[in-house]
C-alpha cells in the first residue's frame, strides 16, 4: 500500500528548478557591421566596440563604431532612398512592406526575445511576452496607416519630412526601434537609427529583417555607435526630423543644438512617476500595480512608478503586503523562465543605482530590501524600498532608473495632487481607487502624459505615449503618433 505523507514539521519549501530558455536555435554573429543602403558595410574607422551580457559580464559580439563619415553615408543613403524610391512608391505598397516586417518579427520572435535578454539583461518572460510582441504589433498597427493618412488631420495638407534621424535607449531596445521606425516609414519618411551602445544586437537583427522583407535599400539604415555617433547624427544637415528617447540631460543638449534650425524634434525623456494608492483601492491588485510599476524591467523604465504615495490610513497594510510580495520575486539569470527581475543593464547603471541607495540611507530614509539571493556574477540589484521619504529627499526628486521605490504617505486629495505634480518631470502617473469620479478628477489634475487608473505600465500601439514638462514632448502610438513624422500645412 502507498505511503502516507509524513507530518510536516518545518514549513514546506518549494524551490523552482531553473527553466532555462534554450539558446541553441539563435543565430548570432561575432561581429556586426553597419547597415547602410541595404547592406552590411564595415565602419569607416575600422573600429568596433564590445557588447556584453550584463548577467555574465561576457562579451557577446563586437559592433561597429560609426564615425561622422559613416553617419554621412547613412544620411545620403536615406536621402537618396527618399527622393528616388520611397516617396514614389504608392502608399498601399509602402504599407505592405511594413506588414511584412511585422510578420517576419512574429515568425522570428523567440530568437529576438533570447537575444534581447542576453544583450540587455531583462528577463526572458518580459522580452518574450511583452517587448517582442509589442514591437511586432507596433509595425503591424502603423503599416495599416500608410494609405489612410488623409483621414488623420482634418483639413490639413500633409507631407513626410524626408529623412528622420532616430536615437534610442537601452531599456527596450527592439521595442524602441519599432516605436521609431514604424510610424516614420508609414508616413513616408526614410530613417537613420542608432541603437544604444549597450544594446545594439536586436537592432542589427532587425536590419536583417529589413533585408528579408526586401525593403528598398536606404529606406532604413541602422548604424551602431557611441555618444559621438549620436551627436554627429543630430548635427548632420540632412535630417529634417530628429527623434530621441533617452535621458533628460541629453534631450536638453539636442534641443539646444538644433535651436534656430528648421529641424523638427520629438523627445521622450526621463520621469519620476507618482503611483497613488487611495484607501478605497482594491488593495491586493494595487500591490501588484506597485510591484509592476517599479520592478518591471528592473525599474529601467522612464514611466516607472518610482514615487509611491499611500493614503495614510492604509499605509501600514500596503507596506506590509508589499514586503511580503517582494519576497516572492526571483532575481536571477535573465534566460531562466523563473526570473522576475533580471540584470541591471550595465556596470555604469548599477553604480548609479547603488549611489542613490547609499544616498537614501544618508538622507535618513528607512531602507528595506527583499531577502532574495543575488547571483554571484553579473550586475544585479535587490528590489529596494525607502520608507518615510518626503518630496525634499533627493531620492524622491531625481530619477534613479533602477528597482528602488520611494514611499510617502498622504492624507487628502489636494495634497497628493500637489505633491505628485511637484517635480520637473511629467511622464506618467498611477491612480488606485474604486471610485470612478475620483479617477476622473485625478486624471484631469495630474500633469502627466500617461495616467494609469487601477493599472500600470500598460502599452499598446494604438495608445499615445509621451510626457509633459521635462519628460519631453511629442507622442508615440495611436493617431497622435503620426504627427511627429508629418509636416502639416
Amino acid at each position, binding site marked *: *500500500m*502507498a*505511503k*502516507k*505523507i509524513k507530518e*510536516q514539521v518545518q*514549513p*514546506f*519549501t*518549494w*524551490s*523552482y*528548478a531553473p*527553466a532555462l530558455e534554450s539558446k541553441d536555435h539563435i543565430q548570432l554573429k561575432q561581429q556586426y557591421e553597419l547597415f547602410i543602403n541595404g547592406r552590411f558595410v564595415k565602419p569607416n574607422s575600422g573600429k568596433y566596440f564590445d557588447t556584453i551580457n550584463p548577467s555574465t559580464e561576457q562579451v557577446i559580439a563586437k559592433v561597429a563604431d560609426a564615425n561622422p563619415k559613416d553617419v554621412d553615408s547613412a544620411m545620403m543613403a536615406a536621402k537618396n532612398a527618399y527622393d528616388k524610391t520611397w516617396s514614389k512608391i504608392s502608399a498601399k505598397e509602402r504599407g505592405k512592406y511594413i506588414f511584412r516586417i511585422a510578420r517576419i518579427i512574429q515568425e522570428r520572435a523567440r530568437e529576438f526575445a533570447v537575444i534581447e535578454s542576453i544583450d540587455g539583461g531583462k528577463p526572458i*518572460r518580459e522580452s518574450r*511576452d511583452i517587448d517582442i510582441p509589442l514591437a511586432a504589433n507596433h509595425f503591424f498597427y502603423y503599416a495599416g496607416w500608410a494609405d489612410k493618412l488623409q483621414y488623420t488631420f482634418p483639413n490639413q495638407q500633409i507631407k513626410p519630412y524626408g529623412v528622420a534621424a532616430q536615437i534610442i535607449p537601452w531599456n527596450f531596445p527592439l521595442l524602441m526601434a519599432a516605436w521609431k521606425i514604424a510610424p516614420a516609414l508609414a508616413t513616408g519618411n526614410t530613417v537613420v537609427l542608432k541603437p544604444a551602445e549597450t544594446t545594439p544586437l536586436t537592432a542589427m537583427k532587425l536590419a536583417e529583417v529589413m533585408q528579408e522583407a526586401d525593403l528598398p535599400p536606404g529606406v532604413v539604415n541602422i548604424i551602431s555607435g557611441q555618444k559621438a555617433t549620436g551627436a554627429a547624427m543630430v548635427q548632420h544637415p540632412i535630417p529634417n526630423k530628429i527623434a530621441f528617447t533617452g535621458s533628460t540631460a541629453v534631450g536638453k543638449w539636442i534641443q539646444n543644438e538644433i535651436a534656430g534650425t528648421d529641424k523638427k524634434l520629438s523627445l521622450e525623456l526621463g520621469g519620476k512617476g507618482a503611483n497613488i494608492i487611495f484607501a*478605497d*483601492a*482594491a*488593495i*491586493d*491588485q*494595487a500591490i*501588484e*500595480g506597485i510591484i509592476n510599476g517599479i520592478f518591471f524591467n528592473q525599474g529601467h523604465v522612464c514611466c516607472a512608478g518610482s514615487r509611491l504615495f499611500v493614503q495614510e490610513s492604509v499605509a501600514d497594510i500596503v507596506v*506590509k503586503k508589499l514586503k511580503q510580495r517582494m519576497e*516572492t520575486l526571483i532575481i536571477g539569470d535573465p534566460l531562466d*523562465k*523563473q526570473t522576475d527581475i533580471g540584470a541591471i543593464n550595465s556596470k555604469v547603471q548599477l553604480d548609479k543605482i547603488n549611489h542613490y541607495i547609499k544616498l537614501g540611507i544618508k538622507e535618513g530614509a528607512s531602507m528595506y530590501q527583499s531577502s532574495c539571493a543575488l547571483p554571484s556574477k553579473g550586475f544585479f540589484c535587490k528590489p529596494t524600498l525607502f520608507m518615510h521619504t518626503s518630496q525634499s529627499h533627493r531620492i524622491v526628486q531625481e530619477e534613479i532608473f533602477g528597482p528602488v521605490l520611494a514611499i510617502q504617505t498622504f492624507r487628502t486629495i489636494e495634497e497628493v495632487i500637489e505633491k505628485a505634480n511637484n517635480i520637473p518631470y511629467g511622464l506618467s502617473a498611477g491612480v488606485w481607487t*474604486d471610485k470612478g469620479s475620483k479617477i476622473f478628477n485625478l486624471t484631469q489634475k495630474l500633469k502627466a502624459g500617461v495616467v494609469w487608473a*487601477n*493599472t500600470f505600465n500598460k502599452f499598446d500601439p494604438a495608445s499615445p505615449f509621451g510626457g509633459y514638462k521635462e519628460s519631453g514632448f511629442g507622442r508615440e502610438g495611436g493617431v497622435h503618433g503620426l504627427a511627429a513624422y508629418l509636416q502639416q500645412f
Partner: protein
Amino acid sequence: MLDLSNIPVIDQVGVEERIARLNSRSIKKESKLQGLHLALSMIDLTTLEGKDTAGKVRQMCYKAMHPADDIPGLPTVAAVCVYPNHVKTAKTALGNSGIKVASVATAFPSGNSSLKVKLADTKLAIDNGADEIDMVISRGEFLSGNSKFVYDEIATIKEACGNARLKVIFETGELSTLDNIRLVSEIAMQAGADFIKTSTGKIQPAATMPVTLVMLHAIKDYHEKTGKMVGMKPAGGISTSKQALQYLVMLYETLGGAWMTNEWFRFGASSLANDILLQLHKEQSGVYYSGDYISKD
C-alpha cells in the same frame, strides 16, 4: 459576531493579470516531481452521482489507497468525497489507511431546503463516521443580501459537526462577481469554516483561478487579523497536472509553505489523479504515456 466592515474591493482585471504572471512560472524537473507528489496527496477523490452504489464507492476507495502500485513512493490521496448514505461503506473500505472520508451534506448541491433537513443530513453523515463535511451555502439568501442568514446557517452546521472539519462550498459559478466571492469568504471564515471551497462541481463554471486567488487573499487577511488558519479547496474543472501545478504555484506565492499540505489545501477532482500518474510515468521513463497504463477506478 459578524463584522463586515473592512472588506476590500476586488479589481477583476488586476486579478487576471496576477494570475497570468503566476502561470508563466515554469515548473520542471525536481520541482515538478515535488509538485506532482504534493498535488496527488491533496486530492479529494470524488464520486457524487445519482447512480453511485456501494460497489462503486469500494472501487474508488481502493484506488484512493493504491493510485498506482507500479510507481514506488507515491502518497495516497487526502480523502474520498461521497454522499452521506455511502459514508459507512467508504469508512469500512478505507480502514486505517489514514485517508479521510468527506461527506457532502445540507441538501447538496442546491442547498434549497430547511435548516431542519440540512441538520439531519449532516447528522446522518457524522453518525456514519464522516471525518469532514462539505456543506453548501444558501446562494439565494446570499444574493438577496442576507449575510446574517448565511453566517448563522454555517455556524449552526459547524456546531453539528463536532470534531469533524467543515468545508463550506460557495458555488462560485453562481455568485458572478469577485467582490461577492470576497464577501462570502469573510462570512464563512468568521462563522467557523475550516475550509472554504469553490464549487459543487455540478454546474459550470466550477473552480477558476481568479476565484481561487481571491479566496486565498481572503484567507491571508483573515490569518493576519486573527492568527487562525483556514484551508482552501478548489473543486471541479481541474483535470490536468499542468493546472494543478499552476494552482500550487498560486498557493505557494500567496500563502506560503505553511499551507502546502493536505491539511490546508485540497483539490476536489476525479480525473486529475490519473493525469498526475501519466505525468509521473513520463518523468520516470522519459516518454509520453497512454491512459491504457493507468487504472480507472
